[in-house]
């Protein structure tokens, strides 16, 4: 397997497709950028699919090519971690619609020009179908699927769409549908992008002058939803940014303003505004119950998949009650389900941060599933 070009970091494959999309269109070919870590064992039983969140990417445990920072989930994936390349064959793919090498609005269409807004609107299920095509290409049959936030939505969709392929499912800080509040925050972000004159109806790729201001504002608004009020108060309070008194102007007087501006500005270096529109839309459209006749338990009837759900007490974006309603559906379907609400000061972002209990729970759950 050492010489197999399919495996390793910074991989990409263009599959002929077509990929039939929920919106009615189809996509062909389909390009997927991905990484693998570790080795698929002889009976192909050790595959772990890691699903990333809205602005995540395939660099789950490798250096990010743009930022130079370590992978986004090295606390969970890596030597000695619950998901360990020494024991597991780990796959992480950039989702459909994103901008890190998978098919998305920034990629060239058949006419050689970027898709821009001609890219079809996609769903979480479309992302998952594309991942299934990738796993077929890699020779992977059954998987353990793990993800937080939008990654958790993909994991749920995996279990519902390919029940016989998913042995175990880990869903962290996630939900089975987007709430009105979730949609509302996303709409603020989208409107910020589309209100930026540089957005130009999505046709900004030739200009080398993308709608950075709009995307930065979108990121700033979203970033607030990833943190808890207590966490913000503890980290910044009303402290001033490198000054003794407020400036009676509109500079970033407060540390929290400076922090948010930094979050916004650094985000635009690594993310595409149109991708942000497409992926937030996919999340807003997500309602797993609706896909199954309005009853979430129907999504998991007869499932043999083991589930582990984790929520965080300070996460108000995908609060515990969302996880609890998934657990109720799993219980109604008779599925093997575990669920715990962990305590953390970090809000929604806790799934990416240092929460030792999270690693303990995930490690125990995976090992009990024979991983």
């Amino acid at each position: 397997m050492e010489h197999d070009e399919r495996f390793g970091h910074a991989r990409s494959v263009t599959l002929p497709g077509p990929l039939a999309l929920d919106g009615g269109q189809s996509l062909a070919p389909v390009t997927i950028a991905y990484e693998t870590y570790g080795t698929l064992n002889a009976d192909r039983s050790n595959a772990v699919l890691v699903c990333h969140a809205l602005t995540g990417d395939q660099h789950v445990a490798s250096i990010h090519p743009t930022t130079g920072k370590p992978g986004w989930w090295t606390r969970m994936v890596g030597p000695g971690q619950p998901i360990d390349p020494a024991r597991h064959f780990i796959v992480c793919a950039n989702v459909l619609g994103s901008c890190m090498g998978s098919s998305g609005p920034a990629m060239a269409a058949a006419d050689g020009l970027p898709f821009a807004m001609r890219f079809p609107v996609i769903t979480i299920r479309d992302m998952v179908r594309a991942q299934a095509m990738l796993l077929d290409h890699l020779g992977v049959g059954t998987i353990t699927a793990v993800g937080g936030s939008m990654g958790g939505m993909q994991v749920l969709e995996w279990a519902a769409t390919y029940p016989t392929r998913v042995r175990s499912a880990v869903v962290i800080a996630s939900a089975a549908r987007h709430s009105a509040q979730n949609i509302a925050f996303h709409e603020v972000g989208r409107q910020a992008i589309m209100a930026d004159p540089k957005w130009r109806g999505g046709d900004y790729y030739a200009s080398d002058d993308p709608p950075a201001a709009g995307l930065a504002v979108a990121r700033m608004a979203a970033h607030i939803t990833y943190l808890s009020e207590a966490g913000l108060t503890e980290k910044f309070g009303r402290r001033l940014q490198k000054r003794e008194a407020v400036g009676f102007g509109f500079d970033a007087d407060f540390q929290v303003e400076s922090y948010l501006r930094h979050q916004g500005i650094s985000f635009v270096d690594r993310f595409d505004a149109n991708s942000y529109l497409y992926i937030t839309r996919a999340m807003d459209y997500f309602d797993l119950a609706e896909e199954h006749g309005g009853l979430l338990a129907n999504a998991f009837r007869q499932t043999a998949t083991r589930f582990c759900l984790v929520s965080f007490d300070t996460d108000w974006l995908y609060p515990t009650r969302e996880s609890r309603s998934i657990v109720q559906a799993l219980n109604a379907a008779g599925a093997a389900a575990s669920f715990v609400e962990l305590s953390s000061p970090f809000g929604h972002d806790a799934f990416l941060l240092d929460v030792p209990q999270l690693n303990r729970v995930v490690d125990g759950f995976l090992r009990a599933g024979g991983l």
Partner: protein
Amino acid sequence: MPDTLRPDLAIIADHVAPGSRVLDVGCGDGALMAALRDHAHVDARGIEIDAANVATAVARGLSVVQGDADVDLAGYPSGAFDYAILSQTLQTARAPDRVLEELLRIGRRAFVSFPNFAYWRVRMSLLWGGRMPVTRTLPEAWYATPNIHHVTIDDFRAFLKERGIVTEGAWFLSGDRLTSAAAANFRADHAVFLIRRSA
């Protein structure tokens, strides 16, 4: 079964049919579930209110969900389990009668264990000391105890009779040792009942 199990749990473990499906309501850190899984190939699921206990149970590979017996049993389908187990949890429920009805709806049979408030040491403590009893099975002071619905063995028997619930087995413990059913309401510090709905 491992002899490290709490005595009431050991009795339950000894009387659960191998290979059955079990829901342990208030499963703590999953000690009984693990024993049932490892020694009797039981498909065990659990509910536990304390997050640290849930984390421990999940980390030992058990299917446990964080939840509250008073509210979270409603989501389980009827007859989904061979046994529902409620060990040392009945007296902490806000509505123990409803929890018992739910138990017998979800499980074809139910094991219920509880500390006996009519145990003679408890009686003595109240009668002579005039104080709320603090004993081995009721170790917390009145302000700290999670036990909000104290019950005696005779109360429980009367309840079963009143609701037409069938007793298939009963075990009475005094100082971790089995004691006879005779005068159990006086001599036993806790009890285990195996019950089911009448057919």
